[in-house]
């Protein structure tokens, strides 16, 4: 399968190389098309958001009012979801592809300016993007004003409305919806926020037509997806495939299987916010629908693989601490709930748990579920409940024996 985005080994971050391989041709073609036509092409392609929510991209673009006026495109390069590092490779190695995608998307929605929000910790990506921007501007290749905005280090700023707040110079906390960003977003103007990977598929779709992209995939998940595989595998990294490969293929064929000939124990399939899967789920098709049916989610495609020596209580503890630390403090259930979960799980992990603690964790998750202002609080529940569901015995062992079944520490 020929990759659309991750074309490796040709130093495509250098503009000469990108141009020699047909770079910016798609943008030239897009500039001859009506904005409405571009939107239709993307709708036909079936492209869905790659940041986690999986919303159909063409549909989102279609929400922007057609009346003239200020509009913005925001590219979400905050990539905060643990286990996800696909956007990092795209921004570092294929910055021009991203800039081209941003330009085409801006034309489609009528935006004269685009903000590229990059996670502040990605210094190399920022460097490569800034150079690429200068090079492309020098050659008058871009049709939209692109501004790179560095994030200050908060997971919540990957949430689209918190991202807008951050660009506007405010504390990154999510906004009330409605109004939705397509109607009132950045500075109150119609705004579309798209993930880095999503925008990077756009040049191919415009140049080669939507049917090509839509031809591959499974169910309603069409085209390609980049999965970031990390954890106890031989070859961690980003892998671009089509929707529909199985989890087993992804782990054992692409990522080389479990290292040191260990057995697989658990897999996080779609970033820290997704419920974990176990060995019995390995033949699941990696697409939005199949994973949702199995009670988890494709999310950002961040696949974290854990072997037999992993302590699942420790896994839950690390993830709980993440959500607790990253809660923005806006809403009661997330702010207090993540603190509660983190405190109890930490105690259990250290061997200070008491009988009833697991029931407490389940009850706290029940108090938070469906009550939070944004997806962060809702997501914090998943690692806790799914590790309890599949590995209750480990929790009980920690509580009753004050020891860990897995012996050593996790990852």
């Amino acid at each position, binding site marked *: 399968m020929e990759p659309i985005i991750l074309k490796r080994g040709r130093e495509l971050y250098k503009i000469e190389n990108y141009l020699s391989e047909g770079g910016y041709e798609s943008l030239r073609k897009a500039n001859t098309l009506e904005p409405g036509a571009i939107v239709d092409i993307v709708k036909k392609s079936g492209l869905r958001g790659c940041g986690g929510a999986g919303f159909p991209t063409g549909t989102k673009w279609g929400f922007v009012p057609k009346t003239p006026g200020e509009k913005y495109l925001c590219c979400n390069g905050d990539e905060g979801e643990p286990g996800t590092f696909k956007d990092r490779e795209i921004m570092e190695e294929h910055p021009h592809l991203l800039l081209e995608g941003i330009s085409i998307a801006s034309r489609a929605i009528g935006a004269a300016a685009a903000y590229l929000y990059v996670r502040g910790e990605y210094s190399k990506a920022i460097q490569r993007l800034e150079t690429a921007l200068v090079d492309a501007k020098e050659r008058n290749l871009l049709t939209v004003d692109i501004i790179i905005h560095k994030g200050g280090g*908060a997971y*919540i700023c990957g949430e689209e409305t918190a991202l807008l707040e951050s660009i506007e110079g405010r*504390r990154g906390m999510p906004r*009330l919806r409605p109004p939705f960003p397509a109607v009132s977003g950045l500075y109150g103007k119609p705004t579309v926020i798209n993930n880095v990977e999503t925008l990077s598929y756009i040049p191919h779709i415009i140049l080669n037509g939507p049917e090509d992209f839509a031809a591959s995939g499974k169910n309603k998940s069409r085209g390609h997806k980049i999965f970031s595989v990390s954890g106890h595998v031989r070859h961690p990294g980003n892998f671009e495939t089509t929707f529909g490969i199985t989890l087993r293929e992804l782990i054992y064929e692409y990522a080389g299987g479990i290292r040191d000939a260990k057995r697989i124990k658990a897999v996080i399939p779609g970033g820290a916010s997704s419920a974990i899967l176990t060995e019995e789920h390995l033949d699941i098709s990696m697409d939005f629908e199949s994973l949702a049916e199995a009670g988890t989610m494709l999310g950002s495609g961040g696949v974290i693989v854990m072997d037999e020596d992993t302590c699942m209580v420790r896994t839950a503890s690390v993830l709980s601490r993440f959500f*607790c*630390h*990253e*809660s*923005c*403090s*806006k*809403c*009661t*259930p997330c*702010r*207090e*709930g*993540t*603190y*509660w979960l983190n*405190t*109890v799980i930490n*105690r259990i992990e250290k061997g200070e748990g008491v009988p009833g603690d697991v029931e*407490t964790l389940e*009850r706290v998750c*029940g*108090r*938070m579920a*469906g*009550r*939070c*202002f944004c997806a962060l609080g809702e997501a914090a529940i998943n690692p806790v409940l799914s590790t309890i569901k599949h590995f209750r015995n480990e929790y009980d062992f920690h509580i009753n024996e004050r020891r860990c079944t897995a012996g050593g520490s996790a990852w």
Partner: protein
Amino acid sequence: MVTLKIDEKQITTTAGMTIIEAAKSIGIEIPHFCYHPKLSLSGSCRMCLVEIEGMPKLVTSCTTPVSDNMVVYTKSDKVKKAQEDILALLLINHPLDCPICDKGGECPLQDYTYKYGPGKSEFYDKKWHFEKPVNLSPLIVLDRERCILCTRCVRFQDEVAVQPELIVVEKGYGAYIETTKEEGFTSNFSGNTIELCPVGALTSRQYRFKARPWGIKRVPSVCPHCGCGCNIHIDVRENKMVRLLARENRDVDNGWLCDRGRFGYLFTSSPDRLKTPMIRKDNELVPCTWDEAISKAAGIINKYKEMHSIDSTAGLASPQLTNEELYIFQKFMREVVGTNSIDHSLERYLMIEPPGKTICNGLRRFSFSDIDEADVIVLIGGDPSIDLPILDLRIKKGVNRGAKLYIAGTDEIELCRFAGRHIKAFESYPDLMDTIMRETGEKNKYLVLLNRMMHEEDVETICACMKTYLSGKISMGGWISLGLMLPEANSQGAQDMGVTPFYLPGYKDTGEGSLKGYGVPDKVKCLFLADMEVPDIAGRRRDIDHLISYTPFLNDTARLADVVFPAAVFSETDGTYTNSERRVQRLFKAATPPGEARSLWYLLMSIANALGADWAYGSSQDIMTEISKVNHLYRFITYETIGQGGSYADGTADGTRYYS
């Protein structure tokens, strides 16, 4: 209009109203913390979650507008579970401070926990702690452990006071409220955050540990500190004022108070309050009985009536006194003492009221609510943030709504940030008004606010200029409203009651006005001071034979008096104030004055009767009855019609009033 069902009750209401407001309008309470009708929506506390038929998740009723055929449940099992959940979560880190927390007894968190919360806690771990308490300012103290981050205080400062001095810092469980300025919480509206705070996080330092809400007597009154006349609640415990709270009056203060008004009450229970009259014996002031003092004062006045010309007696009364006291004061000085030399100010002041002066007629009489409708607001001199702080808030809101603000003839003031144009200097008033009119030709609703140091000639010029545009604006459906910014609580009342050498009550000309100046006359021999301090009195004391002082404190002026009477303060008397929009509002007596202190009208009645008069006022209501007969401007005023919301002096209900 939309029709929907809430808890099986059908209701028809305007589209766009939120569910929580619609429920409130039919008497259904939905618990909430972060929501406040005067602030922007937050939707963050999650306490107001309700169930809507057909929707999988509960929604926040404060952010969701009603729609046709919506079916809402505020008491279903799902909702009850959610309410219990949110309270359980709030209480895990909230300190168990109730026994020592000032909010106890009037605390929504306490009340909701009783009604909707879990019976016991399941959190056995360590609560998160903050250093506490933290003094944000000399007035406000913050307890960060109690704070539930509802952000009402932050939003109030950002949106209403427009002095963004509070922010949330850090994130997650470690987040807390901090001031943006190193000097602390300096906003002159900071006290409102105390009333907004739904828990005991922001509290008053003055009120700290002083009382419990169930042991307090609450009396409605009016703030005595400026000409806005903000409505207040006076909270009294064991005859001492322990705090002042806002008493919402949409037309005046809209539920807010400035810090001067809210915290300026400690003087009422100062140990230095005079409790007995004093008399000068052997050149020293000594306490004496009421009768001794009355007879001494009567004797002095009598002597002057018989021996000197009536010109040499004068009286000054404070514009913080009530209408009733001021009316009796001028009646006493004119009928009993026989002099017209009375005033309520040491300096010159402006009067635009007197009829027969046709300068303002045809122009609309200023109501605070004009600020809410005006297209153009013109401030000439003066600084509302000092003189009439609540007007500051109202004008900021007006500008936010789209009014264009012109500030003329002042240095940099707080409102300049909001001004469309700040005109520091101008050629002449007609020039100024013409410029403004020219720049705003397409607008039709104007409000012009004058300051009281202006000269009558200037006001005449301004009015003459405005009247040339008047018919044009009226034909466009607009109006031109004129107001005078009077900084004291009852300056307007003092003028109306004739405490000026120029006019009797109701502005009947005394005919002697041109012979008098303002303030203390040069040739005075006997001076009666009713709660007035005269800074240069020491230098003039040798020329003044007799000084009678009515005062709550033995201040520098009173120390030089021959007779001193202890005064009641605003909270110790029934009466009325007339504010800068000529609204008459009632003060209710909240505490008894200390010792033998009395209202001024009672004192003057005693002296008058000692001099042979036959006054028989039983209460301030009796006095108002007489005022309404004597002063035609107050002919519609009775205590019943004023009630607790006040009423315009000319009796109109909707505030559309004109100068005549």
